[in-house]
């Protein structure tokens, strides 16, 4: 009885509860139905209003309301007025509202754009044209709390139909003046980013801008107040440490002025300043300087500093670049390396073909360099260089130029996937006017931590004057006319590895001289060399020792003199190797006289040094 009574009372309560629920549901359904009926028309008219103000049309396939405060739009597209391709598309946009009853702020408090697709070129064009209007509109927005989510987004850097898309997502929080964004982008190498800042009436204080993909990272902070932008920070990129970044930029009505930008790259200092026009970024002047840290000195790389001045201007044929580059070197190598280099180039044009090829044309490139204490000038004309940019860390450059009446061709591959970068080069040259003759040859170069260069070089009918080898030979044999040798054919294979130099298969022919041999100089300046040299009768007669040999051996000038060199390059030891001529001379000499000749030669070479005693015994 009690149970029956209880069940009856409970059933009564349930009946009411269900009735209330049904009534509320009906009310909500009616409300939702009414809102959904009214919403498309409202959204359409709202869209038209936005289109008038923002110069962009918002279209969507469906729009509906979801309890308690969400409006859901599907297949949304934003198209700039008068354009065909959309700036932005999204599969679904969910707008979240808070009811004014519960919040006094702007009712829109969240936007979730799923599957956002951005057409970068169109978006860039739109923002460039309408950024002032957008900024003014943003200023009118009430400062409340806003959460903007964009999962599963993609950005097309080029045409939507052709280019590959880069996926991205972000999560943006706006609260009063604070802005906080974090997200990620990238295909294979996914990069995370985060931005924190404070937006106020005069600009933005950037607390933090970070970018990180596990291998590289960037940390920047600074401010944008009025027309002045300042930033500081550091970057780690593939074992390259860019530290102490300090930049100051001023944005004026017509120009953007880089007041200063300084940073260090693995300890080496870099500084830059310049300006460019607002509307034409290629109309610019820039000064860039690089100073290598003094310590520790890398024996394979003696670069000291680079100074670069660029002047670019827009012409009817596109941007045109003129400029100068100055390179200075530490501890210049006295034998081969350039001590300093000044490059003056004019008429540089750059063009990108199919997004993969950068083609550079330089009308003139004047090189002035100091080598072996002599100033040299080389003019290169009509230089054509093309860069294959298809692979992100590998660049292939083909280079051709007219140089000193001849032609030069080079194929260079640059690998920047690791540090230090690796440059490989294969080149050849011919018909170059040098040493009053014609120079031709080919080479292979590998430049990474140090330089490795090898190849073959030939000089046809050239004049050799006072080269290091000539000076040494003139002093050694007392043949003054050897200082100048005209009409020389010279060829050899060469190899340079760091500080060591190798010359093999040396062949030097002139009317008075015939030389064959090799000359190796190691990294410690130690020489290893063997050669055979044959002089004309006139030349042999010039030398006192030559005259004596002529006196002893009939037709001595028809025999080659075989010799070896060794020791320090500045104090080379000389040995007359065994040969037919030496045997013939020996036949006419006593042992005592041989010793006297040796002692005399040594006395002449060992400046201010006494000949060693046979025995020094303190007892």
């Amino acid at each position: 009885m009690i149970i029956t009574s209880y069940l009856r009372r409970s059933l009564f309560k349930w009946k009411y509860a269900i009735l209330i629920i049904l009534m509320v549901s009906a009310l909500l359904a009616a409300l939702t139905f009414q809102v959904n009926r009214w919403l498309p028309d409202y959204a359409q008219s709202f869209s038209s209003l936005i289109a008038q103000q923002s110069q962009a049309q918002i279209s969507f396939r469906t729009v509906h309301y979801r309890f308690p405060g969400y409006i859901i739009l599907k297949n949304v597209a934003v198209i700039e007025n008068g354009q065909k391709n959309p700036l932005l598309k999204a599969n679904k946009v969910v707008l979240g509202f808070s009811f004014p009853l519960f919040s006094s702020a702007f009712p829109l408090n969240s936007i979730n754009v799923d599957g956002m697709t951005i057409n970068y070129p169109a978006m860039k064009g739109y923002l460039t044209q309408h950024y002032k209007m957008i900024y003014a509109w943003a200023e009118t927005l009430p400062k409340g709390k806003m959460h903007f989510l964009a999962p599963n987004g993609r950005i097309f850097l080029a045409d939507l139909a052709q280019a590959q898309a880069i996926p991205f997502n972000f999560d943006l929080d706006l609260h009063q003046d604070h802005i906080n964004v974090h997200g990620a982008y990238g295909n294979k190498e996914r990069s995370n980013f985060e931005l924190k800042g404070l937006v106020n009436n005069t600009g933005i204080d950037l607390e933090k801008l970070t970018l990180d993909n596990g291998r590289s990272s960037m940390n920047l902070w600074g401010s944008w107040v009025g027309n002045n932008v300042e930033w500081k920070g550091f970057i780690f990129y593939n074992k390259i440490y860019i530290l102490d970044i300090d930049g100051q930029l001023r944005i004026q009505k017509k120009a953007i002025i880089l007041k200063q930008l300084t940073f260090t790259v693995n300890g080496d200092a870099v500084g830059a300043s310049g300006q460019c026009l607002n509307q034409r970024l290629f109309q610019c002047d820039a000064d860039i300087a690089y100073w290598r840290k003094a310590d520790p000195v890398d024996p394979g790389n003696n670069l000291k500093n680079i100074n670069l001045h660029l002047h670019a201007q827009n012409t009817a044929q596109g941007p045109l670049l003129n400029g100068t580059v100055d390179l200075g070197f530490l501890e210049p190598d006295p034998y081969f390396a350039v001590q300093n280099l000044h490059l003056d180039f004019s008429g540089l044009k750059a063009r990108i073909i199919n997004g993969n090829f950068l083609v550079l044309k330089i009308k003139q490139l004047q090189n002035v360099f100091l080598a072996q204490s002599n100033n040299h000038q080389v003019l290169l004309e009509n230089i054509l260089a093309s860069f294959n940019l298809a692979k992100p860390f590998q660049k292939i450059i083909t280079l051709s130029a007219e140089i000193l009446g001849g032609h030069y061709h080079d194929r260079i591959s640059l690998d920047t996937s690791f540090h230090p970068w690796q440059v490989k080069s294969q080149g050849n040259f011919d018909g170059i006017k040098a040493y009053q003759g014609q120079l031709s040859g080919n080479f292979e170069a590998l430049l990474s931590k140090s330089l490795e260069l090898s190849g073959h070089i030939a000089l046809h009918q050239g004049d050799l004057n006072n080269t290091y080898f000539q000076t040494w030979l003139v002093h050694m044999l007392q043949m003054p006319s050897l200082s100048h040798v005209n009409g020389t054919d010279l060829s050899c294979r060469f190899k340079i590895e760091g500080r060591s130099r190798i010359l093999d298969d040396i062949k030097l022919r002139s009317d008075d001289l015939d030389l064959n041999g090799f000359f190796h100089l190691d990294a410690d300046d130690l020489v290893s060399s063997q050669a055979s040299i044959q002089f004309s009768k006139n030349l042999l007669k010039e030398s006192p020792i030559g005259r004596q040999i002529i006196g002893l051996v009939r037709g001595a000038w028809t025999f080659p003199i075989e010799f070896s060199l060794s020791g320090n390059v500045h104090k080379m030891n000389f040995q007359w190797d065994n040969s037919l001529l030496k045997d013939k001379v020996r036949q006419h000499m006593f042992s005592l006289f041989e010793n006297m000749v040796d002692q005399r030669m040594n006395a002449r070479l060992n400046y201010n040094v006494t000949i060693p005693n046979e025995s020094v015994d303190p007892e």
Partner: protein
Amino acid sequence: MKQYVIILSLLLQGCWWVPCVEASDADVKWNEAVSSAKQAEYDFAFMDFNTILELYPHSRYGPAAEFAIGEYYFLENNLPMASDEFLDFYAKYPQHEEALIALAYLYKIAQTRHLPEEMKKYRKKAASFRQLTFIFNNNKYFKYRSGFQHRYKLVYYIDKVELYDNNKLFTEVPF
């Protein structure tokens, strides 16, 4: 006046007398050192050579005594100290032929201690020591008897130096 002349001449004679006495003492000390070395009393020899360096550094035995100090440390297998002494000797007497013997020692010590950079350094110095010309002979030599009675023979070739100690090849410095 005569008295002053006599006094002055006596003073001058006194000044002359002092180095004569020094030279004589240095001779005695040198002979003692060599005698100790011959009897294989190396520690006593070392002390005598050291005394020469302390008391008669500018005597004719100075360089030889200094070389002997390096030799002593080498004989005692104290290679770092031997290296320091030979380096000092080379720096003080770079024009003496014995300096090249010191360099050969330094090369040998660096080789024993497995110091390739040091070996390179001494090899380079040995290569720059003299500029030589070999027209009819392919070598030149220099002989030296040290305080410890080692008979050294240094043989120069165009691309190496060989050091013989009591007719045995001690080391070869190629360059």
